[in-house]
């Protein structure tokens, strides 16, 4: 999947997107539903050692309800978050079903605790599809699908010309993910 994504990218198809990255980011990241102030606060307030309060803050920003994990599951997630190194995704396979079945939630934790992994988002997936990068839809934290998703965004970062890189206070993964989400919504 990852190899397919990396080899089949069409540079002409992605060019119009690159020209609009700053505008798309501003529009999407600035939405009230995206709570940009809350996002920025999380960049500073989530750090090791990870606490339940930090998970709560991420859940709140992502719009999730209370977690109802067994304590063993919580420990398993924390251990995974300490162990995983970008861009590895295979560790996701070790998660219990309670967590494995929720890719959005786990991608949120990965994003705010690592700043390198990207939040899984349906609009972003649609944005990638508009660029000719088709990532299957899923709710599960499938390491291969999520791996292809983050690799595709990483590749776009690599290929993007300088004018896509506005000055901003967010990780570049968020810059491209939010711009892609805005692009996906248009489609």
């Amino acid at each position, binding site marked *: 999947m990852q190899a397919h994504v990396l080899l089949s990218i069409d540079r002409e198809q992605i060019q119009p997107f690159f020209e609009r990255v700053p505008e798309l980011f501003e529009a999407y990241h600035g939405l009230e539903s995206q709570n940009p102030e809350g996002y920025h606060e999380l960049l500073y307030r989530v750090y090791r050692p990870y606490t339940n309060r930090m998970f709560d803050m991420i859940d709140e920003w992502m719009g999730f309800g209370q977690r109802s994990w067994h304590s063993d599951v919580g420990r398993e997630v924390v251990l995974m978050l300490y162990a995983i190194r970008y861009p590895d995704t295979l560790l996701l396979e070790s998660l219990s079903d309670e967590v494995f079945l929720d890719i959005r939630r786990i991608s949120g934790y990965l994003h705010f605790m690592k*700043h390198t992994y990207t939040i899984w988002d349906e609009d972003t997936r649609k944005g990638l599809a508009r660029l000719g990068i088709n990532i299957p839809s899923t709710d599960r934290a499938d390491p291969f699908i999520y791996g292809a998703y983050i690799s595709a965004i990483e590749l776009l970062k690599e290929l993007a010309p*300088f004018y896509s890189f506005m000055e901003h206070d967010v990780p570049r993964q968020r810059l491209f993910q939010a711009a892609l989400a805005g692009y996906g919504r248009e489609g």
Partner: protein
Amino acid sequence: MSSNKVVEHFQPNFEAWIQQFNEWQSRIGFESSWLGDYQFEIKFDWGTAGDNIEFGDFEGMPKWERRMQVPQQNIRDAIINMVSVQGDTEFASVEQQWHLLESAPTEYDRKSALRIMCEEQRHGWQMAYVLCNYFGDHGIREAQKLLERNSSANPIRGEDDRPRLLGSFNEPINHWIDFFMFTHFIDRDGKFQLKMLSTSSFKPLAASMGPMLKEESFHLGTGANGIRRIVTQGVIPCALIQKYVNKWVSTGLDLFGVDESTSAEWAYVYGIKGRYDERDSEVDADRKHLNEESRGHYFDELKKEMVAINARRKDGEPGLLIPSDKFNRSVGKFKGDRHDIYGNPFEGGDEEWEQYIHDSLPSDEDEAQLEEYFKEEWIQFRELKE
């Protein structure tokens, strides 16, 4: 020619320059082991460089890809000068900043500063590569000079007799407030210079700018974020921070050069250095006032950035402001004039003026006061991720 290219095999003259570069690192006190696995690469983005000359008297002709395609010796000299000045600033900033690594407030800041220094050195490599590979013996000599001049502010090897070419790059960067101010205000000037060269008629120079600009955005972000984090924390009073803003803004404005510059005009005529918004502008260039126009864009951007910084202020702290472009200038039409930070002519004698400057710019007492603040949690914590 592919749109992106990383050069992997170097010519002997550049290999020789690399040896000199390694010696330079040792001389100035920068330990090569700090680079870790970072590799210096020569990167060209031919896709954004453009195929035809975009402005000036050669507009519409194919961009020059080799020295011998450049039609006149004075144009070749002007290109060499542009590349040399750019390269000079890249190495200078490392000379000014490396000593701060051991006093970083957080590991995140230390790694960010180190990344900036790695990338600045890479930019210097890129400029030296252009000189060595495109401009024969003259270029090779100029590339050597990039490593012979030395920032007067370098704590190990500052040299007043062979200083760096531009004023800001001989200013001491004593601590992390200076570092964040430098990356916010002076690297921002760098962004403007790189953008103006990104449309150059000399294609290898234009193609060098894309990758450099991409990296530069991180440097600016580090500066802007750093200042925002200091203001958010609220330990160092804004009145004290303001003095450092006053110092670095005035030197940043000076970097754009003299007003009514003939060299800027010739660079435009030759197509080697455009306006900041060259590709977007719908009006003809005012060739007599190119530096003023660029400085104006820079000044506007500083004011916009300051709004975002002020939004983080704690209650009761005064707002930070960008001082007038007439204040404390050493270059341009306001050079040596006496204006206050609001741009009003200063009314008073020499003694009062000295006092005003003392009160508006960082003094020895302010530096001592800062040292006390540095013993506290003076900047918002940010974790180093991964």
